[in-house]
């Protein structure tokens, strides 16, 4: 099992050449290389699939919803080599941008987030990207959801670092990240972009196991560690459809990066 694999990896001290922001035209990458077992995540609910489009980037793949104007899931494959490359990219210089491949009627614009009080939260993190071109693509709003600032900059950033450490230690990890939209009502930015109630991240290490985190998208966010089966039931996305029943049902011994559902009181 993945269990208690948390190895602190010394930061690579690279020669930090400053990277200027690349502005490549988007090129369809190969989405399938980011899918565990070559199988893409599955959303069973037809309402959630309405108005969706697949977007392939070089280092990650997105299923984007024109209803929420956010991704519904984002897939990545991390390896020891990719994590080392990302750590070597010491200084990054970039720009958030609307996704030009999406029709204006479906996509989020920079104005939607401006002054909203929400962060533009990466689903595939910038810190996973080992090349300037990949890092630039990660700043597409098609890879963003409105995320609580304290969560995005705190526990969620710690989780992203943990997953990189996991991939570097175990050699390979498939990662699927996305928003959840639960509850009778949702907040909406600028009359356009839906604010997720939760954000989640699922990890599968071939031959080792799988599991997921769900965090409330708000201040003092509550965290849960769940099995892939529970995640799929809760958020409506099955990140790893090919996974065997036993592995799907097992709750991993992952750490959390904020207070859990069982903790009393408030706090970070």
């Amino acid at each position, binding site marked *: 099992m993945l269990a208690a694999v948390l190895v602190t990896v010394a930061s690579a001290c690279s*020669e*930090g050449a400053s990277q200027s922001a690349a502005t490549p035209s988007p090129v369809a990458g190969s989405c399938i290389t980011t899918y565990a077992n070559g199988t893409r995540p599955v959303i069973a609910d037809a309402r959630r699939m309405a108005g969706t489009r697949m977007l392939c980037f070089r280092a990650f793949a997105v299923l984007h919803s024109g209803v929420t104007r956010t991704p519904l899931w984002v897939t990545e494959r991390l390896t020891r080599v990719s994590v080392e490359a990302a750590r070597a990219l010491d200084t990054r210089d970039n720009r958030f941008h609307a996704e030009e491949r999406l029709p204006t009627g479906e996509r989020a614009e920079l104005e939607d987030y401006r002054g909203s009080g929400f962060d533009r939260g990466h689903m595939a993190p910038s810190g996973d990207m080992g090349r300037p071109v990949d890092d630039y693509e990660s700043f597409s709003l098609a890879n963003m959801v409105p995320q609580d600032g304290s969560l995005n900059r705190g526990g969620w950033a710690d989780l992203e670092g943990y997953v990189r450490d996991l991939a570097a230690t175990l050699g390979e990890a498939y990662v699927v990240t996305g928003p959840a939209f639960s509850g009778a009502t949702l907040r909406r930015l600028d009359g356009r972009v839906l604010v997720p109630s939760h954000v989640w991240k699922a990890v599968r290490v071939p031959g080792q196991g799988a599991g997921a985190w769900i965090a409330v998208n708000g201040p003092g966010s509550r965290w849960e560690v769940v099995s892939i089966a529970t995640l799929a039931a809760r958020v409506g996305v099955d990140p790893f459809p090919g996974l065997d029943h036993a592995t799907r049902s097992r709750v991993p011994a992952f750490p959390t990066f904020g207070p859990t559902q069982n903790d009393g009181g408030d706090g970070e």
Partner: protein
Amino acid sequence: MIKPFADDEAAVSIEDLYIENGTARVVISGSVEITRDSAGLERARVLKDLADHLVAALEAIEPQQAQPDERIASVDQVENPFA
């Protein structure tokens, strides 16, 4: 390097330290290790560059302009289309 307060889209990171530009505010979060070597020196120089740009941009603001003219995006509540 960002031009502080010039736009809402530029972002820069130094190891795990993230700096997001904004017309009303610049947000800095995360952490960075300054090692006692040439890589640490390079990071320290980028940090100094950032601090110099911030101070210069703030010093250039006339006192009567100091109020941030932040556009407040509307946040409303809608029925969950998936519920």
